[in-house]
């Protein structure tokens, strides 16, 4: 267990060390790059502001992610059962996935107003395609022989879905959640920045970039987001370990 955390910790420390040295040796301008020590010091000094804002951002990203997961699994289950619908929706989902979503964030804010609704909408939207694709793939990954076994006792559609297809999709849904976590945090940050309600780390970041002396705050916001990302990944890993203890990746002995 300790080995599993040692390697990432070493990686991060070395990375921050190189960054720190780079900024100090080459005297990089403040807005371009701030030394990690300065950014972290500022983050610590203004921690109460960041804790409050961070909690908002966590809610935006976390709840948005859960909404996206729920809708993604529902849509994916329908598409997995109907190749026609799958092919019909695939271009739209791909479009959502590749379109530069930060370009239309302000339109969404205009449409949904300020505060939480546009944040949840954007997080939900940008994470949706990956969840849908993952659900379709996971549900289709069921062995034909196992499906036949279910058919041999005349299992209903719902039962096949619930007892067989959904658990089969669980591993790939976790993998997708790790990937989507970054997207969710970025979308939450962006919407908060484009928002009038001045809530969340994104709002802090926007105000900092507008102020002449905001470099420390801006980089503190960047670090705050990074910390949220790491904590989110840890949480997902923990859940994965509990929920997927039966899965091949968690086997205690090689099979």
């Amino acid at each position, binding site marked *: 267990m300790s080995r599993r955390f040692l390697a990432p910790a070493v990686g991060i420390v070395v990375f921050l060390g190189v960054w720190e040295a780079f900024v100090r040796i080459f005297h990089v301008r403040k807005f371009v790059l701030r030394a990690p020590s300065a950014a972290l010091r500022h983050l610590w000094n203004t921690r109460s502001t960041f804790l409050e804002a961070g909690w908002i951002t966590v809610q935006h990203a976390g709840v948005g992610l859960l909404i996206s997961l729920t809708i993604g699994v529902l849509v994916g289950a329908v598409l997995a059962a109907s190749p026609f619908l799958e092919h019909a929706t695939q271009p739209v989902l791909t479009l959502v996935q590749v379109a530069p979503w930060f370009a239309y964030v302000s339109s969404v804010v205009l449409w949904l107003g300020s505060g939480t609704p546009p944040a949840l909408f954007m997080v939900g939207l940008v994470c949706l395609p990956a969840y849908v694709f993952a659900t379709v793939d996971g549900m289709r990954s069921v062995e034909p*022989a196992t499906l036949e076994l279910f058919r041999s*006792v005349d299992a209903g559609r719902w039962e096949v879905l619930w007892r067989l297809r959904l658990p089969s999709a669980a591993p790939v849904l976790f993998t997708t959640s790790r990937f989507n976590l970054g997207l969710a945090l970025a979308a939450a940050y962006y919407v908060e920045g484009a928002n009038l309600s001045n809530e969340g780390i994104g709002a802090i970041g926007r105000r900092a970039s507008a102020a002449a002396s905001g470099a420390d705050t801006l980089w503190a916001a960047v670090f705050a987001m990074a910390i949220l990302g790491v904590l989110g990944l840890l949480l997902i890993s923990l859940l994965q370990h509990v929920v997927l203890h*039966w899965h091949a990746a968690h086997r205690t002995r090689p099979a």
Partner: protein
Amino acid sequence: MSRIVTRDLTKAYGDLAVIEPLSLDVPAGQFISVIGPSGCGKTTLMRVLAGLEPPSGGDVTVDGQAPATARSRKRVAMVPQQPGLLPWRTVRANARLLLDVNRASTPPDAADPTALLQEVGLGDFMDAYPHELSGGMQQRVALVRALALHAPLLVMDEPFAALDEITRAGMRGLLNHLVEGRGVTVFFITHSIAEAVALSDRVLVSSPRPARVVADITVDLPRPRAADVEDEPRFVELCAQVRHALHGGMS
């Protein structure tokens, strides 16, 4: 009443004839094996009997009903070639799977499979997950899963094909022990002549596709089968008989 009755049963996929007109009577409690060249149509016949595939022509009944009806009443229990255990279910829960699925149709005499798991030597592994079991243990769970249904017909498609020879021999003894005296009819597909003779009351030898019965051999070895049945001269004779029929049918 016979458990399986077919009259001029045929099966074709498009232009591809898979089963030639087949008329068959399998009495209740009989253990019948089908042996034949690869691709001759054995699995197809099993799927028709299990109600998973409609026949193209002729009549077929299982336990007096259409196979599809028997299937919807959970009167046919299947053991596939691969155990097909669900990795997220424990051994105990996997053994219950066919009872849990479509629960409304589970027959009232279906019992908790725990005793069966004990009987096949998995008593200490009830709460283990499939990946913690050897291949032979997994196939034993698959056997229990099917037997727990108390279905009058058990269909098995080369269930031991993926196992090593030593484990296979053990599984033969176990299967004989499990089905003898239970009154269950077994339709068993295999590529192993020794396996067919050791287990069966009757061996059907099929021609290459389209499947046609080239020999219907009664295995008159006494029940319960002795552990060393394969050393008996009569066993060796019967194996030779099956082998000749198989090679005759191939040429």
